[in-house]
């Protein structure tokens, strides 16, 4: 939940480690220093721990920041020019920092990111305390000034990815801490299940909604995709999850596979790189043979799961080892093509003129009904 936790994002976006600018992170740190100095100047003698907690950093990091401030100052950089910082006593005192005594305004991207985030929340009506949301929008717009102007250039449409009925039931149960009964499709096993869950967190990622909940059937934290919830019903029972239920960050896995699970080596092209970020992998290395591509090693308990994943990626992923699994993929693709193309030869002699056949009742498709 810490707002400072942003490390993974930058790395995931870059084309590769070589693409990260040298000194990346210097700007973020400077920004924190410029926010911290005015705050500390108004709170002379604040405890190191309190200051660190306020800025969501460790005390070691705070001390490193103070050491850095201590050697900076106005041109000349004679002792009198430098910022004074003292923290030996466990309390922080700052001085000679007049030039940066006032907090810096928001940058354009900064204002935009928060404004777009707030508008997205406002879109998901009923999600949050609306007074706080409206207040935050108004005050942020005022604080951002001109920097807010560009915020209209980015829009997030997250409501499109969910059944409004299911979403409303889950949201209601979550806000009232009530238990839910779910009828849920487990897609990897192709089976429908019934279970009672205590809702913990509702997340949206890449256009899909997920519920993290304590599952009474599995006696563990599970994540449910809302578009696979066949039915959701709020029960007349308290839905506070047990203390051992800890929500995980979306994007991380709920399970850490053990060593006994076989290791698979997979080559991903740039277009399939997202796999390395969305399933748990042992390690990721850049591929010299494919720009933007990576080789990953991952533990795979279910061959079928991997086969389906690789078929879906259509050549953008290749099983390097074990060879038997690579053969399975090839066999599955061959079988699928044989079945489809057999059909093709019988029914669709002409392959080029069906541009307009999207509708529901073209003569071609109707032939094999029955």
């Amino acid at each position, binding site marked *: 939940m810490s707002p400072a936790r942003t490390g993974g994002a930058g790395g*995931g976006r870059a084309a590769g480690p070589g693409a990260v600018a040298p000194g990346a992170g210097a700007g973020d*740190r400077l920004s924190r220093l410029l926010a911290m100095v005015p705050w500390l100047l108004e709170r002379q003698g604040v405890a190191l721990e309190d200051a660190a907690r306020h800025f969501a950093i460790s005390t070691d990091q705070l001390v490193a920041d103070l050491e850095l401030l201590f050697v900076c100052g106005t041109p000349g950089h004679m002792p009198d020019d430098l910022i004074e910082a003292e923290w030996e006593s466990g309390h922080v005192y700052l001085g000679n920092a007049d*030039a940066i005594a006032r907090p810096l305004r928001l*940058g354009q991207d900064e204002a935009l990111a928060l404004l777009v985030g707030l508008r997205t929340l406002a879109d998901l009506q009923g999600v949050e*305390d609306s007074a706080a949301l409206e207040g935050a929008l108004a005050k942020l717009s*005022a604080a951002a000034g001109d920097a807010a102007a560009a915020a209209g250039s980015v829009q997030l449409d997250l409501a499109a990815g969910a059944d409004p009925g299911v979403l409303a039931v889950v949201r209601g149960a979550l806000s009232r801490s009530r238990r839910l009964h779910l009828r849920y499709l487990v897609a990897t096993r192709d089976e429908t299940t019934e279970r009672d869950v205590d809702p913990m967190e509702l997340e949206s990622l890449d256009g899909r909604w997920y519920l993290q909940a304590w599952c009474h059937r599995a006696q563990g934290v599970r994540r449910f995709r809302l578009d696979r919830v066949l039915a959701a019903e709020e029960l007349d029972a308290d839905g506070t999850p047990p203390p051992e239920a800890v929500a995980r960050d979306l994007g991380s896995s709920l399970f850490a596979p053990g060593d006994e699970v076989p290791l698979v080596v997979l080559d991903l092209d740039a277009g399939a790189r997202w796999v390395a970020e969305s399933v748990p992998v042992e390690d990721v290395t850049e591929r010299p043979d494919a720009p933007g591509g990576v080789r990953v090693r991952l533990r795979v308990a279910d061959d079928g799961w991997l086969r389906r994943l690789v078929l879906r990626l259509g050549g953008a992923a290749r099983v390097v080892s074990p060879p038997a699994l690579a053969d399975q993929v090839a066999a599955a*693709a061959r079988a699928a*093509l044989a079945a489809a193309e057999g059909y093709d030869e019988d029914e669709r002699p002409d392959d080029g003129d069906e541009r307009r056949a999207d509708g529901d009742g073209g003569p071609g498709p109707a032939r094999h009904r029955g």
Partner: protein
Amino acid sequence: MAPAQRTERLLNLVIALLSTRRWLRKEQIRQAVPQYSEATSDEAFDRMFERDKEELRDLGVPLVTGTDAAWFDDEAGYRVDRDAWELPAVDVTPAELAVLGLASRVWQQASLAGPASRALVKLRALGVEPDESSLVGVEPRVRTSEPAFGPLYAATRDRAPVTFRYRTGRTGETARRRVEPWVITSCYGRWYLVGHDLDREAPRVFRLDRVSPGITRTGGTASVPVPEDLDARALVRGRDGAPAERTARVRLTGSAGAGLRLRAGAPADAHEVEVPFADVDELAQEVAPLGAEARVLDPPDLRDAVLALWRGALAAHEPGHQSGQPGHHSGQQTGQQTGTGHEDGRTGAPAAAAGGGAR
């Protein structure tokens, strides 16, 4: 240079530009900031200084340029506009700060994660502690894994026209497009650019994952007029003027494809399902994993997309593509090889198709 040294350099630069009442010329700045002595040549210093200026502007530092009347040449001088520096004092409540934190986390796994968390740190410096008790545990997130996001986001924000190569979904052909960007938007888990297509002289929607690398700006900042009444959401949901929803017919074997049955609203024992969809590639990626247990009856473009995925997967796993061992078929394959009789005759064709059709 280590990040800590760069932070020092930037901080000294900010302080120097804030403390001056006059314009500082580049050479004066080079003297004023001790860390610039690391630059061993004028070119190296210029590069460093350019990067530093950009970084400061990204952080919101109001860096301004001008010239002194007393100077004989017209080289620019720099300083920070102190009147524009300060964050306006707004008294954010603890509950509002909690909501702002939630808004910042929307970007946690996306390319705006840095700006979003910096903004929050700046607001925290106003002194309030967030009160998260009013949050109900709903955490929306977006990701920006498309490489085109960075440059297209920046061009849209700056209202600058761009040109790029784009692969059209229906034909699979790649062509150069010239676009005035209006809005960049995430919908159904994908990023889209909505803008004015200068060649077609009409609004168009572009999927970012179909934009090739190499995006160039063709005009200046703030030169794109954005329509007042633009409804980007409606354009994306029914993009390219096509109806938002089409219907696919898929035949399923056995119990496979429960997800497709669910999507189709069909009973669990249905063997031919009608699946509503908006995006061919997305549905193809749901059908392809089912292999021989699914067969697309209609529409043909979906069928072709699924076949292309299978051909691509086959080509990548064909003997010979791997460690150069021809025909190393082991006996451990699952019993799905219904097509073994004539597979060898086809190995050339799928490989060629995958080479041309795969992304």
